[in-house]
């Protein structure tokens, strides 16, 4: 079976006429790994030098946050970290395609999207340090909480999009939701249910799959025998594959899909073809299951180097620009290190807070018992030393 940019082969039934929209196995690309700007007929991108420089800055700063987080985990300051190394372009490109009223539903690796939505990186550190399970207000940045159970958030995004429909916020000046997930998640029932719901309700939601080739140790062939973007085809909406290491292409395809969703054209599945350069998390050891040669090949497609090469070869940025971005990254790195070390633990009684919205006699009683138990130690100590309690 061959489905390509020209359409489906004659053997493939196409009752919905999606073949032409089903995309190509060759990822959509606007910037080659060598930094050469190329055009795509369906995705013209009118972008200024300033905007490209801003994307470069995003990419560098996001990578720095990631770098510092891994170091902090190694020093015992974070419990765990899920690195986005290699996926910066997919996240920054798609993240910068969102409007302020669009709503993003991330997994636990979307640090680049969080950055684009304006969330303080320290909120992410709180989660990975074990200070909270998230702890930000999703409405403050239209960025939902990190979801750790794989794929569950795709249904939340779809339901949210159904709410957009009921609010009459589809059409000109409309809103849309975007659900982030990985290649492993495409095997989850929830993701497939989200595809069905979004399709039959024509919900304004974009499914953004970062295919980083690995679900911890399991390669893509454990999840799918067809290219992931083609899954959309069976559900009745368009799917496409984009070079996930190309920030310009990710920006262009996400913009177009989000706009289509906002205007009432329904969902799109975007498969951002990328690579998880690091471990699944800091507890993982990828040398047990994948070859170094694969990593080396992907290094040549680095999402940041190609933007830098483009800025230099097209003379869109001077040396002092790159130096300024590096200096800003150093400052950001220092800030997140310092803030992480200064981050206080929550009070032990914090576990009793925010369990219920309404008064709950059981929780209240347990909080009281626990507080009394804690106080009993203080009293004993105070008794021994003759000092007043804390």
């Amino acid at each position, binding site marked *: 079976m061959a489905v390509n940019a020209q359409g489906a082969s004659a053997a493939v039934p196409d009752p919905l006429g999606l073949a032409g929209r089903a995309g190509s196995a060759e990822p959509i690309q606007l910037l080659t790994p060598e930094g050469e700007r190329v055009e795509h007929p369906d995705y013209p991108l009118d972008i200024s030098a300033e905007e490209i420089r801003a994307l470069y800055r995003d990419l560098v700063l996001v990578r720095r946050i990631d770098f510092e987080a891994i170091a902090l985990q190694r020093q015992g300051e974070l419990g765990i970290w899920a690195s986005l190394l290699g996926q910066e372009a997919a996240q920054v490109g798609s993240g910068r395609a969102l409007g302020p009223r669009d709503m993003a539903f991330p997994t636990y690796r979307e640090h680049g999207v969080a950055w684009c939505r304006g969330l303080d990186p320290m909120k992410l550190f709180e989660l990975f340090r074990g200070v909270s399970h998230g702890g930000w207000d999703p409405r403050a940045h239209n960025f939902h909480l990190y979801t750790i159970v794989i794929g569950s958030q795709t249904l939340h995004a779809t*339901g949210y999009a159904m709410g957009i429909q009921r609010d009459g916020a589809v059409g000109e000046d409309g809103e849309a939701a975007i659900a982030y997930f990985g290649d492993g998640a495409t095997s989850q029932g929830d993701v497939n249910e989200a595809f069905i719901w979004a399709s039959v309700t024509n919900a304004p939601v974009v499914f953004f799959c970062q295919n980083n080739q690995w679900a911890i140790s399991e390669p893509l062939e454990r999840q799918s025998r067809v290219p992931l973007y083609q899954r959309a085809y069976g559900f009745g909406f368009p799917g496409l594959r984009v070079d996930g290491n190309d920030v310009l292409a990710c920006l262009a395809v996400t913009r177009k899909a989000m706009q289509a969703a906002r205007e009432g054209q329904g969902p799109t599945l975007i498969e951002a073809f990328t690579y998880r350069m690091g471990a699944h998390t800091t507890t993982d050891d990828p040398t047990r299951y994948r070859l170094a040669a694969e990593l080396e090949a992907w290094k040549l497609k680095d999402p940041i180097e190609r933007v830098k090469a483009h800025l230099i070869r097209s003379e869109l940025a001077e040396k002092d620009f790159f130096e300024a971005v590096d200096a800003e990254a150093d400052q950001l790195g220092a800030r997140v290190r310092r803030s992480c070390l200064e981050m206080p633990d929550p009070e032990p009684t914090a576990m009793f807070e925010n369990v219920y919205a309404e008064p709950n006699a*059981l929780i209240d009683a347990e909080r009281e018992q626990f507080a009394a138990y804690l106080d009993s130690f203080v009293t004993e100590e105070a008794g021994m030393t003759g000092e007043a309690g804390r």
Partner: protein
Amino acid sequence: MTTLTLSRALNEGLRKAMESDPKVLIMGEDVGKLGGVFRVTDGLQKDFGEARVVDTPLAESGIVGTAIGLALRGYRPVCEIQFDGFVYPAFDQIVSQLAKMRLRSLGTVSLPVVIRIPCGGGIGAVEHHSESPEALFAHTPGLRVVACGDPADAYVMIQQSIRSDDPVIFFEPKRRYWDKAEVDTAGGLASAVPLDRARTLTSGTDVTVLAYGPMVRTCAQAAVAAAEEGRSLEVIDLRSLAPLDTGAIFASVRRTGRCVVVHEAAITGGLGAEIAARVTEECFYHLQAPVLRVCGYSTPYPPSRIEEHYLPDLDRVLDGVDRTFAY
């Protein structure tokens, strides 16, 4: 006062909630034109439209997961799970997402989602249509779990559940759907018993009998039968299973000195175990006998031709009461 079946009382309660708050939605399998397999949502789609009474695709995780998304957008979805045994595909969405989102967001997110589950046996159904999974949800912090036992409570409690800013698992005793009783549909919620309170059905002095959902009627009948034998049963309809109204339970047991917990769900790890532990801890010096449980057995729900032997009935409740006097 109007005479309504329990099913109709729920229908009227849902209607009232939808009339008073345009954000209330109903979603589930066959809830639209068909009105639900038990007709609880009968006529609501016709009156409120397809955007508010949503026939969903046939996938329970999808129903609850999209309801969470709608709640994040400001809606108050009421999900119908068609039968108790079909709720398990939605378990992650209920237990890991719905129940925990408030804590995860440090209180910035409320998910006022109600999940209605017809529960219990006694209707001669095939497998997966007669289960009582309430303990699984009562064990899950972040959820409120309630069970209605009669039409009047059904009418009030469904409205209270929809108004709650916490997620509520709402159990409906399916074999009582056709029970009729007087329901005050004119009265407001202000004077109603709060959602987290138990209700004393019959006052008594000898034994406290705790029941909920389908066992409420059985235990009320047991009280009448016991009275003929000179025993005075205090039957309490728990109504709220999470949180439990322990104040009402303890006050009664301290007076009677005996306690029997009755539920259809399997005895092992059930609500009765939780209640027995708490009563023992808090009423130890008042107890004349150990807290006894009259429940379903620790087996999968049996085929319907023998379900009457699995389900606690009048005689088994009375037998349980008798046994507390053996001490």
